[in-house]
């Protein structure tokens, strides 16, 4: 007995759907914020896959900063503003650079959607709860309670929205 063409397509689609239900949409491993000179000012990991000790996170941050700058020079197109997305086998790295040179990058599972908008939301939270805080010194590590609270809420909302899709 052979299946018709439509039947085989329907079967393939139902298999993909069930796979999606067993493996829900991907999550973030870690979030880094680096200042314009490449120093790490904020690091947060979500889950053990992204966890790193302090020295390693500092090294990764300065490594990424250097690669970002070098990529601007190496780019064959003019007016390049640096690496925005790095896709590897086991992770994706999305980077957002503000106009002032502060870089927000997130390491997540491969294929995670909508990281760009999450990074823009995190940038907004940074401008609100870090830059408007009189006790924050520019370019120094971020130790603002309100920023942490709102960041967790934003990531949680993003996670819930992803599972809903």
């Amino acid at each position, binding site marked *: 007995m052979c299946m018709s063409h439509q039947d085989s397509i329907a079967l393939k689609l139902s298999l993909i759907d069930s796979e999606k239900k067993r493996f829900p949409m991907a999550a973030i491993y870690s979030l880094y914020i680096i200042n314009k000179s490449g120093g790490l000012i904020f690091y947060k990991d979500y889950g053990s896959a992204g966890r790193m000790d302090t020295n390693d996170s500092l090294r990764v941050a300065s490594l990424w900063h250097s690669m970002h700058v070098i990529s601007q020079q190496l780019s064959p197109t003019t007016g390049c503003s640096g690496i925005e997305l790095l896709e590897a086998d086991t992770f994706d790295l999305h980077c957002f650079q503000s106009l002032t040179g502060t870089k927000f990058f997130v390491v997540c599972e491969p294929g995670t959607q909508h990281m760009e908008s999450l990074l823009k939301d995190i940038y907004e939270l940074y401008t*609100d*709860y870090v830059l*408007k*805080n*009189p*006790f924050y010194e520019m370019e120094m590590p971020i*130790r*603002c*309670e*309100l*920023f942490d*609270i709102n960041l967790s809420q934003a990531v949680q909302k993003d996670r819930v929205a992803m599972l809903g899709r």
Partner: protein
Amino acid sequence: MFLRSSRPYSEKRQANKGSSKRKSRGENMIGVGKIKQYSNVLDKPLSKGKQEVSLSAFAFLFSELVQYNQTQVDNIAELERRLEDAGYAVGARVLELLCHRDKGNRRETRLLGILSFVHSTVWKVLFGKVADSLEKGTEHEDEYMISEKELLVNRFISIPKDMGTFNCGAFVAGIVRGVLDSAGFPAVVTAHFVPVEGQQRPRTTILIKFAEEVLRREARLG
């Protein structure tokens, strides 16, 4: 608002004359394009003022105020006092303005009257909403409390752990003290964080402690 027109002076006078003729014919029209020139700046009517101001602009300005005062002082108590003094100046002026705009030049003489004025009118004009609650203190006769879930001035501020109980709401406490003092109700006003179970962020309470003479006067008035 004073607007400078680019038309030559003679043309403008003719335009005004024409419109005044229309008015005298009974047309009750407020001309949008008409500009009344005032010879003396004191004759200009007090405007209603802009109803909305950018929150970000205020937040940055307030943050700079706190940072500037931090460089001038050695300890936290001094910083709180400076913020309160800054607020006091605002409070005195706000009372004058609000008495002219909202209350038709009536003067509050009773304690509850001035407290509800602060709690509703002053808060509405400064922060866009009335304060969350106004309570009478249980332990002392002369204490009253205005509570707020989160003061507008504190919206973006996270106090570092090593600053202890410092509260930038001292600025708002200063405003309240300025209003009360200028209205004839001298008081000591302070801002405190009050932890609430079930919530991460504590509530803010403005504690108002009236002077002896206020209570005596209030008792005399009956």
